[in-house]
C-alpha cells in the first residue's frame, strides 16, 4: 500500500473515532442546554424556600422535595455505606473465600437489577407490613441500590493497594484486621469516597424505587416515618401534569437534580486528593 494511501486510511479512522466521541458527548450537552434554557428561568429564591401552591395558582417552590431528597439519601447512606464498604473490604482482602465470591456475584446481579424491582421489594417488606408509605421505605430501597455499587468500587480500590504495603504492616506485627483498617483503608480512602459520591449521585436521581415507597408528599415534612417528597418524584408528577406552571417547575427541578449530580461528581474529584497531596 502506498504512503498516501496509508495516510488517508489513518485520517478516515481518526475521523470516525472523533465522530463517535462527539456523538457520545452530544446528548449530555443537549440535555444540559435544554434544561438551562427551559428551567433556569423558573429558578429563583421562591423555588428553593417555598412549598407548592394549590394547582392552578402560579408560584411556589419545591422546598419539600429538596428536604425529602436530602433526608432519604442521607438515611440511605447511613444504612448502606457501612454495609457496602465493609463487604467491599472483605471481598478484596479475603478474595478467595466462598463468601467473597458469592457476595461478588450477588452484587453484580443486584447492580444490574432494574431499580423498580428493588422498589417492589421495599414495598413488600416495609410498606405492606407497616401499612403505610414512608420516607424510610424509600431510604431502604435507595440503600439496596447503593450497597452493591459501593461494595464493588470499594473492592476495586482496596485491590489497588500494593501487596507490599500489607506485608510491611504484617511484618511489623499488625494483625490482619488492623492492617486493613490502619494501612490499607486510609491508602485508598479517596477512591472509596469517590465511589460513594458517585453512588449518592446515582440514587439522588432514582425515581422508580420511590414511587411506591416514599410515594411523594405535597407538604413540607421532615419525618422519615411519613410519606416524603423527592426531587425526581416532583419532576415526574409536574411533568405529567396538565398545568403550564407545573411544567416550568418540573424543568427547574430537573435542572437542580442535574446540578446536584454535577456538584457531587466535582466533589468526588476533590476527594481524590489525599492528606498530603493537597499541600503540594
Amino acid at each position, binding site marked *: 500500500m502506498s504512503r498516501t494511501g496509508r495516510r488517508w486510511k489513518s485520517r478516515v479512522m481518526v475521523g470516525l473515532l472523533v465522530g463517535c466521541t462527539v456523538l457520545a458527548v452530544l446528548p449530555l450537552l443537549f440535555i444540559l442546554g435544554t434544561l438551562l434554557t427551559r428551567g433556569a428561568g423558573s429558578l429563583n429564591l421562591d423555588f428553593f424556600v417555598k412549598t407548592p401552591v394549590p394547582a392552578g395558582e402560579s408560584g411556589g417552590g419545591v422546598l419539600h422535595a429538596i428536604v425529602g431528597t436530602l433526608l432519604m439519601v442521607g438515611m440511605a447512606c447511613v444504612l448502606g455505606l457501612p454495609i457496602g464498604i465493609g463487604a467491599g473490604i472483605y471481598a478484596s482482602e479475603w478474595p*478467595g473465600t466462598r463468601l467473597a465470591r458469592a457476595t461478588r456475584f450477588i452484587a453484580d446481579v443486584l447492580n444490574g437489577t432494574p431499580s423498580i424491582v428493588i422498589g417492589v421489594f421495599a414495598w413488600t417488606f416495609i410498606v405492606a407490613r407497616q401499612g403505610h408509605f414512608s420516607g424510610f421505605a424509600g431510604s431502604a430501597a435507595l440503600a439496596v441500590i447503593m450497597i452493591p455499587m459501593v461494595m464493588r468500587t470499594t473492592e476495586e480500590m482496596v485491590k489497588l493497594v500494593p501487596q*507490599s*504495603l500489607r*506485608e*510491611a*504492616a*504484617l*511484618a*511489623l*506485627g*499488625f*494483625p490482619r484486621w*488492623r492492617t486493613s483498617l*490502619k*494501612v490499607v483503608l*486510609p*491508602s485508598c*480512602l479517596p477512591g472509596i469516597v469517590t465511589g460513594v459520591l458517585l453512588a449518592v449521585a446515582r440514587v439522588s436521581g432514582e425515581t422508580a424505587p420511590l414511587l411506591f415507597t416514599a410515594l411523594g408528599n405535597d407538604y413540607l415534612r421532615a419525618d422519615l416515618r411519613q410519606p416524603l417528597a423527592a426531587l425526581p418524584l416532583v419532576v415526574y408528577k409536574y411533568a405529567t401534569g396538565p398545568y403550564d406552571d407545573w411544567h416550568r417547575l418540573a424543568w427547574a427541578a430537573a435542572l437542580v437534580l442535574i446540578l446536584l449530580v454535577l456538584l457531587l461528581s466535582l466533589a468526588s474529584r476533590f476527594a481524590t486528593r*489525599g*492528606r*498530603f497531596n493537597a499541600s*503540594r
Partner: protein
Amino acid sequence: MQTTGLNAWYGTAPALRDVSVGFAANQVHALIGPSGCGKSTFLRTLNRLHEETPGASAKGGVFLDGEDVYSPKVDLKKLRRQVGMVFQRPTVFPTMSIFENVASGLLVNGRMKGRNLSETVTNALTVAGLWEEVKDRLHGSPLALSGGQQQRLCVARTIAPAPEVVLLDEPTASLDPQGAQRIEELLFRLKQKFTIIIVTHNMQQAARVSDTTSFFFLGELVETGPTRQLFKAPREARTEAYLTGRFG
C-alpha cells in the same frame, strides 16, 4: 536464631528443602543464589510472613532463643516484634507522616506514649542515619523523601520496636548507588545491636557487608561459611560455578 530441616511450599510446589542453618548474634549473614533459589522464601519463613501468601506453607523447625517459632503457642505479633523485616522496595505507609511511620510498629501493642514514644522514634531515626534529614519535617509526608531516604525510614520503622533479628530482602535493589552505599554502611552499625540476615543478588555486596554467607540453589542450602572463605575457596562445586558466573 536457627532452622532445622525447614521445608516450604507454594501450593504443592516445593520452594525449600531441608534447610538447616544457624545465625550468630551481632553478625551480618548474607543469603545469595540465583533468582528463584528460595532465599527470599527462606527469609520469609523466619518471621512467618511466608504463610500469609495464599496457599503457602512451611514445615520444620525455626528457633529463636531456643523457642520454636512454629509452635501453635507462638504469638505472631510478638514474634514479628522480635524479628523485623525490610523489603526490596521502600514500603512507607503513604497516609502516615514520617513520625507515624516509625511509631506504627510501636503502637501495635498500644503501650508507648508521649515522650517515651518520641524518644524511641528519634533514636530509631538516628540509628538509621535519617534524623538530620527529617528532623524538621517529622509530620510531613514520607512520599516527599527520596527512595534511599524512604528505605532508611523503613529501617528506622523496623528497628524502633527493638527486635533481636533484622531481615533484609534485597534492601538496595531498588536504590541508586549512593542510596545503596548508605544502607550498606548502616548495616555495620546495625549489627552491633541486632542479628542481621540479608538476601542479596549482588555478590560484591555480600562480600563487602557480611561475616557469613549461605549459598542457596534450587531450594536447597548448598553451603554456609565465613564470607571470605566461601568466596575464596568454596567447598562445593555448585557454589564455585555460581560465584564464577557459570550459571545464575
